[in-house]
């Protein structure tokens, strides 16, 4: 039977068949692409990555409040996560705000807890919460033994060049590196060949993530200009308590999440104040990051893990 204003049963069946074919081909196509991507990953997996490390950030030890009543417990959980990755990371990065109020007790607690990380090296940079009243002196006394200047440093691990930058000591509205540190970066990379993979880590993003909230660094462009000639540059940061990624030319930026409490997405609130999530949801917003680099690849592989 045919409805004069609609389609016949035969037409309906035909359209249903086309729709089914579209869904079927889409699923099959997705399977093929996933398989190809999986093969590529598996091929890389046969070769042990040149470098594997973990990033934790913004533990805010000493914070008390409804957004997270026990930041020490969630930081401990993050440490356990790192210790149970199934391999020993070459190092662990903490991208700042280890403490909430920069007290000696909080620094002691951070140092003691991080000594439980099963890794040969732990590298840190200070956040603005780690340098509240003394321009980072207590931070440097606890964590800055190998640093130069006011806490920045660089080193080479497995052919990868790491640069730790401090952009929280001369905070205006945005993060700030300063002339001395810019000079350090310029001289530091001058000796490196352009195919050396570079990993830069800092607390405040080196890209303009949301300048209205201070989520950017006012003189980062100059620092990054010294890195333009390198084929692989990856910048890791904390501060924003949420995952975010951005690519600018040869530089990939990745903001990491926190082990303490979430902050609103850019512009979602009048100010970046701690967010209280419904019961049971907090640990989904907290996490750690695994990063691996395989020689010959320009991009680092990142894997985000929640604390759930």
């Amino acid at each position, binding site marked *: 039977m045919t409805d004069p204003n609609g389609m016949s049963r035969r037409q309906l069946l035909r359209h249903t068949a*086309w729709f089914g074919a579209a869904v079927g081909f*889409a699923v099959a*196509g*997705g399977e093929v*692409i996933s398989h*190809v*991507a999986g093969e590529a990953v598996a091929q890389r997996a046969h070769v042990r990555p040149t470098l594997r490390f973990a990033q934790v950030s913004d533990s805010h030890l000493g914070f008390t409040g409804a957004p997270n009543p026990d930041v020490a417990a969630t930081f401990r959980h993050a440490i356990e996560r790192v210790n149970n990755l199934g391999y020993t990371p070459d190092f662990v990065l903490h991208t700042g705000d280890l403490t909430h109020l920069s007290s000696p007790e909080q620094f002691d607690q951070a140092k003691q807890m991080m000594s439980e990380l099963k890794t040969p090296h732990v590298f840190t940079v200070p956040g603005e919460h780690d340098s509240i009243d003394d321009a980072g002196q207590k931070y440097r006394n606890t964590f800055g033994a190998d640093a130069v200047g006011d806490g920045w440093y660089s080193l080479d691990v497995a052919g990868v060049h790491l640069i730790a930058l401090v952009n929280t000591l001369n905070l205006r509205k945005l993060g700030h590196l300063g002339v001395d540190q810019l000079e350090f970066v310029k001289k530091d990379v001058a000796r490196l060949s352009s195919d050396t993979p570079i990993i830069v880590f800092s607390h405040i993003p080196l890209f303009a993530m949301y300048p209205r909230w201070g989520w950017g660094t006012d003189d980062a462009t100059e620092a990054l200009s010294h890195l333009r000639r390198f084929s692989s540059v990856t910048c890791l940061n904390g501060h924003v308590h949420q995952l975010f*990624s951005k690519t600018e030319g040869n530089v990939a930026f990745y903001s990491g999440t926190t082990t303490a409490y979430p902050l609103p*997405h850019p*512009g979602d609130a009048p100010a970046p104040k701690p967010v209280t999530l419904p019961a049971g949801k907090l640990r989904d917003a907290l996490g750690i990051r695994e990063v691996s680099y395989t020689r010959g690849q320009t991009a680092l592989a990142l894997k985000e893990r929640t604390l759930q």
Partner: protein
Amino acid sequence: MIGILVRLGLAASLTISGAGHAYLYVHGYQHIPTIGIGFLVQASVSSAIALLILVGGPGWLRWAAASVAAGSLAAFALSRTVGLSGFSERGWDPPPYAAIIVGAEVLTVALWAGSLAVRRDLTPR
């Protein structure tokens, strides 16, 4: 004749867009939270629609093609401005794929709009 050319053009432009997204997915974008799966879905849906348009599927497939292309263009614009699911890129990064994909998607939308206009002109009033 125009109908066949439009069909071939839509299939080709969708294939280019889907292949570009698939290439970027395999070469790194799979590691980006949310965006990775978006690239996979775009690539597989575009390829499926391209194939069905090529073999002479019904007219609504052209609407689907235009929707996928327009949605991808909107996502591209968001990723260059306010960000999309915590992801943002600048300009035509990664070259040359971004420019090729955007060009193909603009062509898809243009072919769909053109075929719609031609069809309206040919409809007896």
